């Protein structure tokens, strides 16, 4: 097959940039255009809640590639101009500034946007953390001694709570689960994570749902919970999940169900692919549709999509992976821990603060977690590779 003369990538974050880079690495010499909604050059998001928020890195250090490396990709970047509509039939994308881009192949990599509480945009002191500007904005408010309430007990909320507590803020983490990150880690590791936070001074308000913000004038003074309390706050971070950025695709004819629904090759329509946080693809190994909001997926899926665009595609069957660094603990998770799984410590010792936990469901390996044992956890990943690249019986 003839490679497409013009590839248009909508989204200039990790997934979009990786698609471009892989196309070039595979020898593609055609025209590539990359659109981004933010004015910044492509940057990396995992450091936002850690090194950037802690002030350990300058914002520039989060840039994905130096300017010279971006130039060498020989692509046209249009940054700061969000896409507003897509016509899959003519493969045309319209942008906010009124530009029209027509291409032979389109890759949608628009990511996700942070969920918010009703009305929070108009209240000072309430933040989300999704973009570089979000991170620097929150950073400016994190003065030691102030009271920070983190709304949300997932990865992002936990990382921000850890960063803020280490900076000397009076930090409260509030969320609906029985332990932080319980959905991502399962009960056993989540309980240990809760202990880690408590030991480092974070106040946990578990099994608690936030109903709204308490406001004093134009500024937040606390968050209201279902049990009728107000948790006092000088600063609030809202981190209870993200929504795939598909609003601009309403009416496009693409199937949108919590993301862009794609096949096993990440194809959403003829000549249209989706990649990264926004893509819900059919994972043949797991036998179901999944959407993965993690950093390594952005890169790995981009590589799969780039290969498919050039006619060398294969079904995309990754072993999902994420890491999180909180206080002095590095957690690595391969696979997808879930409810009702049998867990077993297969290396190290939880009481010593270093261990590997394996998860099985119905006798089948489902996940491996490393707690300060990254190398040892990766070595046990092989069992998942076999389980996830072959279809369930």
């Amino acid at each position: 097959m003839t490679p497409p003369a013009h590839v248009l990538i909508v989204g200039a974050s990790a997934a979009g940039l990786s698609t471009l880079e892989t196309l070039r690495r595979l020898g593609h010499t055609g025209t590539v255009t990359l659109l981004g909604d933010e004015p910044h050059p492509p940057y990396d998001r995992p450091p936002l809640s850690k090194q950037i928020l802690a002030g350990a890195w300058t914002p520039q250090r989060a840039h994905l590639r130096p300017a010279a490396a971006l130039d060498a990709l020989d692509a046209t970047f249009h940054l700061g101009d969000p896409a507003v509509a897509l016509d899959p039939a003519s493969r045309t994308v319209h942008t906010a500034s009124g530009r029209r881009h027509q291409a032979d192949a389109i890759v949608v990599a628009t990511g996700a946007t942070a969920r918010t509480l009703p009305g929070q945009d108009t209240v000072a002191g309430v933040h989300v953390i999704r973009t570089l500007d979000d991170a620097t904005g929150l950073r400016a408010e994190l003065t030691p001694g102030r009271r920070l309430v983190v709304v949300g007990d997932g990865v992002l909320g936990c990382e921000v709570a850890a960063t803020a507590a280490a900076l000397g803020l009076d930090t409260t983490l509030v969320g609906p689960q029985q332990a932080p990150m319980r959905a991502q880690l399962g009960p056993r590791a989540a309980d240990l994570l809760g202990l880690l936070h408590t030991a480092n001074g974070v106040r946990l308000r578990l099994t608690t749902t936030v109903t709204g913000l308490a406001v004093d004038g134009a500024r937040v003074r606390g968050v209201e919970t279902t049990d009728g309390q107000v948790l006092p706050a000088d600063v609030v971070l809202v981190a209870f999940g993200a929504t795939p950025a598909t609003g601009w695709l309403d009416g496009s004819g693409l199937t949108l169900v919590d993301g862009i629904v794609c096949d096993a090759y990440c194809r959403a329509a003829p000549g249209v692919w989706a990649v990264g946080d926004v893509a819900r693809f059919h994972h043949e190994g797991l036998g179901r549709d999944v959407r993965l909001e993690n950093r390594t997926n952005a890169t790995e899926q981009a590589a799969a999509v780039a290969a498919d665009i050039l006619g060398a595609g294969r079904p995309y069957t990754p072993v999902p992976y994420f890491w999180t660094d909180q206080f002095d603990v590095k957690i690595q998770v391969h696979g997808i821990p879930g409810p009702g799984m049998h867990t077993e410590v297969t290396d190290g010792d939880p009481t010593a603060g270093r261990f590997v936990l394996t998860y099985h469901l119905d006798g089948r390996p489902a996940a491996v977690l490393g707690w300060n044992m990254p190398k040892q956890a990766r070595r046990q990943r092989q069992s998942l590779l076999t389980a996830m690249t072959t279809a369930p019986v």
Partner: protein
Amino acid sequence: MKVTVDQERCVAAGSCVTAADDVFDQRDEDGIVVLLNPAPTADRAAAVREAAAICPALAITVEEGRP
């Protein structure tokens, strides 16, 4: 080619080891990258480029050409 790693940036994912375990390893104690061979031979170039591309921390730099 010449390979360098930035242990400060490394997040211990170990993706590089999966891609090229003769060039990269991880420290036993904390999983941080260890460079086994800063000057891989040409037949390993594709695997090393892939390792650099998939590193989620952008901690691997590859300079093309003779070491």
